[in-house]
């Protein structure tokens, strides 16, 4: 397979750089993304290459610069804003849900708002509950948005490029715990197709595990553990939460008869509820056991390291959930 081994972070920078070179209407806005390269170094080197007009440091004003992204998108530009912690989506929620997501529809389809919001979320790094949420389902009930969840470097690269080329508002949830993980990525791709639907990462006959973001990696490790017990799990990356398409998952469940859905969010209101409901609808007659959901508990995430680790799904808890259904 061609390409180079780079980190998730480098994949993000590469996607931004390639698109900013290709399309002069793109620009970045966010806190400390200029000369500092971003608190998570996800914009490293871009200020030096593209200058202050196209890589704009903003004040701490999520409502301000996310709303400004809409103004730019309506007037011929393709802004990409970075929300430093996905948890801050609460600050600019109104701009995203009530203005950005709805503007095209309210105009009767006459305008479009091509913009990208990159929100860096996720736990496991001991930042405490206000800075550790993935927030992947927060905006899932808002029609008009697309929501992409890259689970590794290759997806981070491809999804960000696709999001920038998409003529619609796209929320890309990046996981801070994945920033330093490495993977093979073929850079310099001209045209990237938008991701549609879930993707099978590992084939298996005995159970279907569907997961997002950092939980995908954990599911793959769980599958290795299960394999040593003679259980072959099929691991699926859900990839796109809006528009949600579970056809691949339903198809898999028709073959394995077992479904375990894993997410790094509290159980109530998390996207695995949607997926389970849709798959049960599609493949009801093929289920051998009630589908299981492995999630965070329905209370905030603790800070103390062993507590945080206990609360987040691990390969062990995922494997145990699969075994309990067999």
């Amino acid at each position, binding site marked *: 397979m061609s390409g180079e081994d780079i980190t998730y972070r480098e994949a993000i920078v590469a996607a931004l750089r390639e698109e900013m070179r290709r399309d002069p209407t793109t620009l970045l806005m966010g806190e400390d993304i200029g000369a500092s390269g971003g608190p998570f170094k996800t914009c490293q080197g871009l200020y030096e290459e593209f200058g202050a007009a196209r890589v704009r440091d903003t004040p701490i004003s999520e409502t301000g610069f996310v709303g400004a992204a809409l103004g730019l998108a309506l007037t011929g530009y393709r802004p990409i804003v970075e929300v430093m912690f996905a948890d801050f989506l609460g600050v600019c929620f109104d701009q995203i849900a009530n203005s950005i997501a709805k503007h095209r529809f309210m105009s009767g389809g006459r305008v479009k708002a091509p913009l990208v919001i990159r929100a860096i979320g996720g736990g496991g790094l001991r930042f405490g509950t206000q800075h550790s949420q993935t927030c992947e389902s927060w905006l899932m009930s808002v029609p008009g948005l697309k929501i992409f969840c890259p689970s590794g470097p290759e997806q981070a690269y491809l999804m960000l490029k696709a999001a920038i080329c998409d003529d619609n508002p796209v929320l890309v949830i990046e996981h801070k715990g994945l920033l330093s993980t490495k993977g093979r990525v073929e850079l310099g791709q001209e045209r990237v197709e938008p991701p549609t639907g879930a993707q099978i990462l590992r084939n298996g006959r005995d159970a279907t595990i569907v997961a997002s973001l950092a939980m995908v990696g954990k599911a793959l490790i769980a599958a290795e553990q299960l394999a040593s017990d003679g259980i072959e799990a099929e691991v699926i990356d859900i990839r796109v939460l809006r528009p949600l398409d579970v*056809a691949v998952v339903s198809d898999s469940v028709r073959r394995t*008869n077992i479904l375990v859905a894993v997410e790094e969010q509290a159980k109530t209101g998390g996207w695995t509820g949607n997926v389970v409901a849709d798959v049960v609808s599609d493949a*009801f*007659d*093929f*289920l*051998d*056991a009630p589908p299981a959901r492995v999630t965070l508990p329905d209370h905030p995430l603790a800070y103390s390291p062993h507590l945080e680790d206990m609360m987040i799904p691990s390969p062990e808890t995922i494997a145990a959930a699969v075994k309990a259904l067999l």
Partner: protein
Amino acid sequence: MDFLVPKLSATMESAKVLRWLKRVGDEVRQGEPLVELETDKAAMEVEAPNDGTLVAVLAEDGAEVAVGAPLATLKILGEAARNERAQSSPRALASPNARRLARLNGVDLDRLAAANPDKRLRGRDVERAKDEAAKTSQAERTTPLSPMRAEIAAAVSLSRRTIPAFTLDRFVETTVLDHARETANVAAASGERLSLTDLLLHAAASALAQHRALLGRFTEAGGRPSRVSPQSVDIGLVVALPDGLALPVLRDVERASLGEIARLRQAAVERARAGRLVQEDWAPVSFSISNLGPKGPDRFEAIIYPGQTAILAVGRCHERVVARSSAIAVAAGINLTLSVDHRLIDGVAAASFLETLAQRIEGYGV
């Protein structure tokens, strides 16, 4: 089985029972009129869907009944034993997958559940039971057929006994059809690829619309040989199952686009494979298609399902030598074998339909 109020027209929501033509205890033949219903459109006779006995009348003369409401109970072949067992024991604890496999393979779920108390049966339990049943036959022994197999046996016997069928053959070239299919599939998403059967259904719907005689069904209501002429073009599709076959129906295909036909076909195949045929699939249809697929024979003759008028058997796509303008050429195509009920359709009418169908296929899309 429960005999439900059928949807006799697209707008029908309810009907009034005018009068029962059979009494409790009477034997009924499939296709025989059972009851007269009055809908918003007209008074219509509704026929028995299977051979059997009228066991109970659930709506008396004069009653208003909604579409899908139970009208009567019929005891049909193979059903008696199943009903008795179902009434006597509580619902077995089994997963949806186990129920599906039990339905399709004729495994007695209640007996299996009784042998495995405190456990929810799952697919592998049913498969094990089925394998064990197959394995334990050392010497020659007699096992009752599954209800599905028994119904098939009864149906094909009845067909051969009562339907004077004749067959017509035609080889049709499929170059144009294949090209149309490939072109459409280039742009299609993976779940929406067209199969050869979709295009054949599309062509057949068009041909049937032009030869509506083939939509008629032969009946001997009240002792007089008659023809029942439906309003819409419906086509049955033979679907192979692990231990038998099912015949779901695609309704109103004349007005459907190719994409809609593909979706109807997929839905029909899915419900056949899940063992979930619906009332619409039991209601009468006159014409069916049986396609044995790319591994099928060059040619075969299908058996007309009782109550129907014709069935089109489709052989595998293969190349053969043909004569064209006095020269030898090679063409890819399929053998169509049309079996038709001679009580209703003569050779000329059948041949004419087959000719139209061949034209629709060879000139598809033009």
